[in-house]
């Protein structure tokens, strides 16, 4: 057996070294593209929209068939009509703009804070000692439970709403990024030592790119969290915004306005999550090469 190996070893130096395998055409009997048997199948673009669209169709069908009491759930077109009406009247535009602005501000502040704190805690021992425990305590306190205190401190204006959203956002960003930074593969640390990377090169070219997958997990949680907290904040303590619009509608029994508000939240939540996923696919292009 080992004699064969010996023979090959002797002749190997004369042979050209092949760098990549020669592609062999694959013959299939059915002519269809082969799909991996245990994979869930090929992914189609926009397939994620199918579920929501189906839900919408059922809703529209049930309304058209008169199965739904409009006081309980108005038809989609009623909701759209109400939306158009409120838009032209100008109130929807204001409410929507206010809500978006709050979410954006809170999200931006929370994102920056989460990233900076995670970097400080993940890249230095002093930072970790100071920050990590504190954040864990903060995480243990339900953020929405801070609302009364923050209203006393910051008043009932915009500031406290933005601060609450920022807190809801920074926690998942911090936790996931910090875990990813701390969990960097020790083999890469060795590599960086051998290649004599400077600390800055090591952080920038090894640690941070390696932590990006974890960061994106946190980012997606944060996006959803920012919308979630917005709903709560605007329904308890607001004088404008989508939540306020819905709260008012509850007082006047306007189901269509409530549903309109929910729809807008849903669309924005879905859109922002999709945007993050798209960004993730772009930034983590190297991962696709593994899964494909």
């Amino acid at each position, binding site marked *: 057996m080992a004699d064969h190996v010996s023979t090959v*070893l002797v002749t*190997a*130096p004369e042979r050209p070294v092949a760098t990549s395998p020669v592609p062999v055409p694959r013959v299939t009997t059915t002519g269809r593209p082969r799909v991996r048997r245990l994979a869930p199948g090929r992914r189609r673009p926009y397939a994620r929209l199918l579920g929501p669209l189906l839900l919408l169709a059922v809703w529209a069908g049930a309304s058209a068939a008169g199965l739904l009491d409009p006081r309980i759930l108005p038809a989609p077109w009623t909701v759209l009509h109400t939306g158009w009406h409120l838009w032209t009247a100008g109130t929807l535009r204001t409410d929507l703009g206010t809500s978006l602005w709050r979410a954006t501000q809170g999200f931006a502040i929370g994102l920056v804070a989460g990233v900076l704190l995670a970097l400080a805690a993940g890249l230095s021992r002093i930072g970790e000692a100071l920050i990590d425990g504190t954040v864990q305590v903060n995480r243990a306190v339900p953020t929405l439970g801070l609302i009364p205190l923050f209203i006393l401190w910051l008043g009932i204006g915009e500031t406290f709403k933005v601060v609450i959203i920022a807190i809801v956002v920074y926690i998942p960003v911090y936790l996931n990024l910090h875990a990813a930074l701390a969990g960097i593969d020790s083999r890469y640390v060795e590599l960086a*030592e*051998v*290649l004599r*990377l400077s600390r800055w090169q090591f952080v920038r070219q090894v640690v941070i790119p390696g932590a990006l997958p974890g960061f994106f997990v946190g980012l997606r949680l944060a996006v959803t969290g920012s919308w979630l907290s917005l709903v709560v904040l605007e329904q308890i303590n607001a004088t404008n915004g989508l939540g306020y619009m819905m709260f008012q509608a509850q007082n006047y029994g306007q189901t269509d306005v409530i549903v309109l508000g929910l729809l807008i939240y849903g669309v924005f939540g879905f859109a922002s999550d999709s945007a993050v996923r798209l960004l993730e696919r772009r930034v983590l292009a190297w991962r696709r090469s*593994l899964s494909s």
Partner: protein
Amino acid sequence: MAPIAQQLTQPAVRLTGLTRSFGPRTVLDGVDLDIPPGQFVALLGHSGSGKSTLLRAIAGLDHDTAGSGELSTPERVSVVFQDSRLLPWRRVLDNVLLGVGKRDADGRDAAERGRAALAEVGLAGRETAWPGQLSGGEQQRAALARSLVREPELLLADEPFGALDALTRIRMHTLLRELWQRHHPSVLLVTHDVDEAAALADRVLVLEHGRIAVDLTIDLPHPRSYRDPQLGEYRERLLAALGVRPDGEPTAAVPAGATGHRGED
């Protein structure tokens, strides 16, 4: 063996009384070793014999290990690990150039040198591939290119072909030998494969109980043939030093990795 006449006086690597221990266990027990510039040395030993510890000490990777002794190494040292250690988020060329400045001291463009190194290991045209798109052998070639581009005076390789299949390993042997002939760094190749050591190296060391038990110069031309009875003699001496009788039966307890020569005369 082509000597580099000018530098022969000064060894590239000099270890004097190198001792390393993990807790109560002494892994290296006063190792003395000189490696002249440009020499291709293979280091054999059972698993746990301390050969990786020795390599890591020379590479300066053993901060947390207790020990003493003197160690002098050249300025430019490259290490090839058993795994390629390519960063999956950097394209192949960017991996090769990790930590390399845009231009070197002579003003040569780093990207050009990186491409040349990749071409040398047979990966021309794969510069923009992700490491995950390469086969195991190709990944190890890229790791070799990453070492080459630094123009090392000393190349340390820790079982670099241990994870590759037999055919790929033979190709890599040829490649490593070619690269050595072209660039002439000192090489310390840690391996548990006697065939690999005998086929590649000009000098084979066997590490046992933390000391260099055998220091064998293999003065045979390249490429070497296993049918060469002289090489067979060297291999038998090495196998005997590792505790394996020529008929393949271990004379003492030998880990599985050191065998693989059964059925040979």
